[in-house]
């Protein structure tokens, strides 16, 4: 059963879609209106990261960095040292991809109040191909002390994550997608950094119990898979973990205890992201079988977003199959 605080009547045919970067653009503008210390930096990708809304409204608080992601990270660190709240945006492949060390030394190690926004994450970047498809970003950011890592599900959650990041004092990374993502939440669905939410509850009369854990753009696929599993007589629930660091351990443990097996779903390498985080935690407190849906240690390629999601095994049917197998 779907949670009552998300979009009603979700189905592949009717669901509305919008890129998460749109939510960032709206959220950043709103954050800028709320706090004059919010500043935005961008590396020649102002329109495609949707930083342009903020830049148009607050030109004096926007810094066009040119194509220089490493400099952007450290400039932001310097700005935060004098009281600013910088949001730095580029494609995730370049920031944090290229600027990882600068982020580690000058942002995370200093616990600087900088928000790193990685747009165009995942294979759903599409035709640009593997060079532009960041599928390792959550792993490299999660390994870094002091860093919060968030993968918003849709444009509403991206907007809320942006506002929450602006309020949180300390470094935050969140990833955004290029292509339109199914809108699963509503403007009123609660969002809190570090809090997981159950978006689908299993039919308790069914004997087999599989728990699906999602993050980011694939929550819709997880929900649709859960529905299909229930139709096939397997009890399935969905726990949405927009924040993969800090992991909501309490919710995760309770969720694991309620199910026979788990499936993690993310548009990311299966190593080091959500699947890795879940497995690491549960192996110590509640060992359980976990199937990890995501990119299986290969690079992406050019193609349309949907076809790439299917090809790399992150489509609805792939989740259903993995769930059936793991719960056997």
């Amino acid at each position, binding site marked *: 059963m779907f949670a009552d605080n998300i979009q009603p009547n979700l189905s592949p045919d009717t669901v509305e879609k919008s890129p998460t970067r749109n939510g960032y653009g709206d959220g950043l503008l709103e954050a800028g209106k709320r706090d004059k210390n919010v*500043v935005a930096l961008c590396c020649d990708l102002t329109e495609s990261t949707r930083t342009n809304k903020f830049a148009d409204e607050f030109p*004096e608080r926007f810094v066009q960095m040119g194509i*220089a992601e490493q*400099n952007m990270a*450290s*400039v*932001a660190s310097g700005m935060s040292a*004098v009281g600013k709240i*910088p949001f730095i945006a580029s494609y995730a492949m370049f920031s944090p991809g290229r600027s990882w060390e600068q982020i580690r030394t000058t942002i995370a190690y200093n616990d600087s109040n900088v928000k790193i926004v990685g747009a165009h994450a995942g294979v759903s970047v599409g035709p640009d191909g593997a060079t532009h498809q960041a599928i390792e970003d959550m792993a490299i950011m999660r390994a870094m002390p002091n860093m919060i890592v968030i993968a918003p599900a849709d444009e509403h959650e991206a907007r809320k994550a942006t506002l929450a990041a602006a309020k949180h004092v300390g470094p935050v990374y969140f990833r955004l997608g290029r292509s339109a993502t199914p809108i699963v939440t509503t403007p009123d669905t609660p969002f809190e950094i570090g809090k997981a939410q159950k978006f689908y509850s299993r039919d308790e009369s069914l004997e087999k119990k599989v728990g699906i854990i999602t993050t980011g753009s694939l929550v819709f696929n997880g929900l649709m898979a859960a529905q299909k599993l229930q139709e096939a007589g397997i009890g399935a629930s969905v726990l949405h973990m927009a924040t993969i660091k800090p992991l909501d351990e309490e919710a995760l443990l309770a969720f694991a205890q309620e199910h026979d097996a788990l499936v993690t779903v993310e548009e990311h390498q299966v190593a080091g992201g959500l699947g890795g985080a879940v497995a690491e935690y549960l192996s110590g407190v509640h060992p359980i079988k976990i199937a990890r849906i995501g990119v299986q240690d290969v690079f992406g390629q050019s193609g349309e977003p949907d076809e790439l999601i299917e090809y790399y095994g992150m489509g609805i049917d792939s989740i259903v199959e993995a769930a059936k197998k793991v719960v056997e």
Partner: protein
Amino acid sequence: MVVILNTIMQYLTSEEVTELEFKANEIRQSIIEMLTEAGSGHTAGPLGMADVLTLLYFGILKHDPKNPDWEERDRLVLSNGHICPVLYATMAHAGYFPVEELLTLRKFGSRLQGHPHRQSLPGLENSSGPLGSGLSQAVGMALAERMDNPYSAKFMYCLTGDGELQEGQIWEAAFLAGKEQLNNLIVIVDRNGIQIDGYTKDVMPMEPLVEKFEAFNFDVQEVDGHNMRALNDAIGKAQAVYSQPSVIIAHTIASKGVDVFERDFRWHGNPPGKGPEDRVTKDKQSSVALEKLRTLAGTINNHDTK
């Protein structure tokens, strides 16, 4: 007795120069003592930059050692973090923390990390070690300061190595500083001509350096990095330049003050006791260095100085 010198000395009197040189000598002795105790760390850069750091902390910076977070302070960003022994020693002599604490350098639990960690020690403006990112941070500080106050008289000083200029990020930062005409940014390059693997001219020639910075729209000065009066004048001029960021290329002698270590790139990353032995054997490197400093390389009787 520590005083905050927040008035810019337009011209240094002979007495002031002597006082600063005496202070720099004390700081060099501290550097030798702390490196010897640590048993690792960098010698050449810290000794070479002792005059610049002394002038900054005792003659230029607006700062308050007892209130390191003072809002109105100037900021000093050390980009080449490996020369932190000279920064720590200067800060201790300026009153940020007890001079005795210098002997904890690089030890477990110390606030004086092998490379600076901002969160560890009040008064540090940044963490550094990986080269090339300090200039960006100083640029960020200068930009943010100007956003709040276009007529700000707070200066952001950034110290970089010369080998460090081989990092691409330096030039990314230079692009932005030039574009934004950050007059409140003053960069001082430690042009000592050495890096770990050899002389910079062999590892990666970087001349003409003046023209490189000029091409990035910096006001550029070259100065003897051991001449207090010349350094003071250069910094004064840099503060006066209004439409450009400034860079002062300070020509320094690696390991300055200990003639038997000077100009030898092999002293870049070794402490006294672990350096090259052609001129002084390892067991005597520390005591000889201190003796050289206390007697100004044998030119005076050390009873005159201490």
